[in-house]
């Protein structure tokens, strides 16, 4: 991936994430983590290379076809990005809008047949009792879990998470990581997560990927990745 400015953000960075696998990308700021995630999510087009979801290359898609392909990928951001004035259940149900392109939903209606599914998604993240509350009443960790429920509501094959715990307190961060782990194991979801906390990554992920200046430095199970290898990623960014 080369930006129009000429800056090469990523090169020869290939990876595959399998269903049920929880992979974490580690790396210093500006190493290309977010670029990688944005390309995989179809939010940016790479200058070369391809992104295959269940065999289909999404970098060649546009418009409606791209939207449809994006439905198979659930995105989780650093912030929950919920519509604060609407209820938690409503927010989760909006995750299903992509498959219900009707005049009714275009005018602000929600597909009623999706409410049971949305409740189901809320149950998976442990927020059933908050369904009727306004999203603004949730704590940071709860809001992030509701955002994950919204991503689940779109029935994705994979979850992409861009620093999902960066703005959470340690306890809420553990909750969210545990949830992602559970979704990979129980729902056979492929989870790809960008993280800044090597210790959290070690404890929850199946696979650690180190990204350094746009190149994959290591790609292995946590047990095989030495602390030195991780420290190398941040070399020049940290004192010592």
């Amino acid at each position, binding site marked *: 991936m080369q930006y129009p400015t000429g800056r090469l953000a990523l090169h020869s960075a290939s990876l595959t994430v399998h269903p049920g696998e929880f992979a974490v990308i580690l790396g210093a700021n500006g190493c290309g983590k977010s670029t990688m995630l944005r390309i995989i999510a179809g*939010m940016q087009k790479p200058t070369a290379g391809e992104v295959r979801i269940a065999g289909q290359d999404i970098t060649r898609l546009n418009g409606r076809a791209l939207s449809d392909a994006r439905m198979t990928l659930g995105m989780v951001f650093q912030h929950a990005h919920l519509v604060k004035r609407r209820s938690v259940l409503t927010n989760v149900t909006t995750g299903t809008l992509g498959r219900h392109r009707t005049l009714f939903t275009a005018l*602000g209606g*929600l597909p009623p047949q999706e409410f049971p599914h949305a409740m189901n998604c809320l149950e998976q993240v442990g927020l059933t009792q908050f369904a009727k509350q306004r999203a603004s009443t949730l704590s940071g960790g709860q809001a992030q879990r509701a955002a994950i429920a919204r991503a689940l509501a779109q029935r994705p094959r994979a979850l992409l998470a861009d620093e999902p715990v960066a703005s959470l307190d340690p306890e809420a961060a553990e909750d969210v990581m545990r949830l992602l782990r559970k979704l990979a194991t129980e729902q056979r979801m492929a989870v790809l997560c960008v993280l800044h906390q090597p210790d959290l990554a070690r404890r929850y992920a199946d696979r650690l990927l180190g990204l350094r200046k746009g190149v994959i430095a290591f790609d292995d199970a946590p047990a095989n990745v030495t602390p030195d290898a991780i420290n190398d990623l941040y070399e020049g960014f940290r004192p010592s």
Partner: protein
Amino acid sequence: MSSETLPAAVSPAKLAAAARFSLLKTAVIAIVLIALFVQALIVVQAQPAELITGIHGMADILSRSLPPDVSSFPAQLWPVLETIDIALFGTFFGVILALPLAWLAARNTSPAPAVYHGARAVISICRSVPDLVWALLFVTAVGLGPFAGALALTIHSVGMLGRLLAETIEDMDMGPMDALSSTGAARLQIFTHAVVPTVLPSLLGITLYRLDDNIRSSLVLGFVGAGGIGFQLLTAMNLFDYRTVSLLLIITFVLVLGAERLSAAVRKRVL
């Protein structure tokens, strides 16, 4: 030190020239301002003497308009309703038209630059043409009466509401929009499910403010034949029926003040 910081080559002669120049500048500005003011006096044909000698004429009209003709009050109820309804119609349809227009005219939600500029242009035209002119235009189309006034207020409201709403949308957090777009939602769905719920309180506040504005405008629109209290006022003036005029002025005062208070109170509750 000071010999270093001051420009070295300033001679006394040059300093004096600079002082003369700044004095000249002040004088020129003063003369221009006075000339501007004097031409305004001439153009408006200001004759303070006439205001003083003519004061008894005003006193005369005032005495003839008192007491207000309360007996004609029931006859004014219908025009009052007409005035309020013109404002309600204009505000309601103004919002309905302004909302999609604002979506196209907000930099962050507009689908294409050409659409953005087009929508901005439509909003500007709606706003920059005064509602009185819109009313005159619509009178030629639908004839004299409240409908012309209601249409005029609709179009003029679109101008103001569209601009304020577009700015509200531009100020809003893009997060929920990004999140919905990543779920594969369509553009219009993102608008109705992420943008509209978020801007709803502002939308309500702006709308109430506009309703209050529209009630005032709808009074004036009566003068060009758009019905309501304004039209009654014009008729009473032409018939030299000053006691009805004073009653109508009192009604106007109460109406405007009431609308202002009501919209302020509701806005306070909502926001």
